[in-house]
């Protein structure tokens, strides 16, 4: 009876569980606390690794990046907000750790520079077009010249 049950029900069920794709799932974060992991993930894509400067903390394999991710993880586990954690790192490494520079007098040129260039370019374009318009007006024939042209043309025909 017991053996029968094993063969008919339990083993096929086990077979199904083991080989079904119910197991294939996206890799779960190793840490248990999903909320904390999400925060670490979010922050580490926003922050620069200072060792390999063109990588985020999330991308970098540098040891310092590991340490900083761990530091962020611990702060996140303590319930610190994104802003608090960013402030903590900026206090130590400067605004450079942030991929999005903050808006402040020292970064005004960075933020508004492109618009200034756009305005300057637009102004230059307008000046140039006006000048060209003026030049074109100047090249128009005066009535005197126009009469002369007609005269010549009439003579031809």
């Amino acid at each position: 009876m017991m053996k029968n049950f094993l063969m008919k029900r339990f083993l096929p069920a086990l077979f199904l569980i083991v080989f079904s794709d119910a197991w294939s799932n996206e890799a779960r974060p190793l840490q248990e606390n999903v909320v904390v992991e999400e925060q670490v993930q979010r922050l580490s894509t926003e922050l620069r690794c200072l060792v390999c400067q063109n990588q985020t903390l999330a991308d970098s394999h540098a040891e310092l990046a590991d340490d900083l991710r761990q530091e962020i993880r611990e702060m996140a586990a303590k319930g610190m907000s994104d802003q608090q954690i960013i402030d903590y790192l900026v206090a130590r490494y400067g605004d450079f750790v942030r991929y999005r520079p903050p808006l402040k007098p020292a970064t005004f040129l960075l933020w508004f520079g492109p618009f200034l260039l756009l305005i300057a370019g637009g102004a230059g374009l307008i000046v140039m077009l006006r000048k060209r318009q003026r030049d074109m007006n100047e090249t128009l024939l005066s009535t005197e010249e126009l009469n002369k042209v007609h005269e010549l043309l009439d003579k031809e025909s």
Partner: protein
Amino acid sequence: MKRFLIPLLIFIVLVAFLGIGLNLDPREVPSPLIGKPAPIFSLARLDDPSKSMSPKDMLGKVWLFNVWASWCGACRDEHPLLVALSKTGIVPIYGMDYKDTRQDAQQWLDMGGNPYVANAFDVNGRVGIDYGVYGVPETYVIDKKGIIVFKQIGPITEEVLRDKILPLVKGLQTQ
């Protein structure tokens, strides 16, 4: 003539900006700690784990704080300079051994000479993070009130020592 002058001027300005950009070192990130009190820590000393070292002990004197490690190649380059500086007695050098093992660090000091008055032992790099360390060696000049006045990222060279650090230290010592 004017036709060519304007593009030429724009070109010269562009080249000037690119030239400046080429000569900047992107590794030199301005430290936000300049002008701020040196972060307080209390770490076990490298030579004797039962003793501790803290920046508070150095209040009242100008001192150099050199972060180093036995695994760091650039530290090897600056080491003879530190040894020479320590022999002049101009300014005390305190060190912090960063993410290292006691044995390796001690061996390194035995071999290369020990310029340090004392060394803190930062085994997990936590204090390093407080100091914004991202590439050893890094050296801080700290004044009598415990304020960080200057930070050198990367090895100290003879030029930096002669032109920046020593004049700064002498100025601070007379304050």
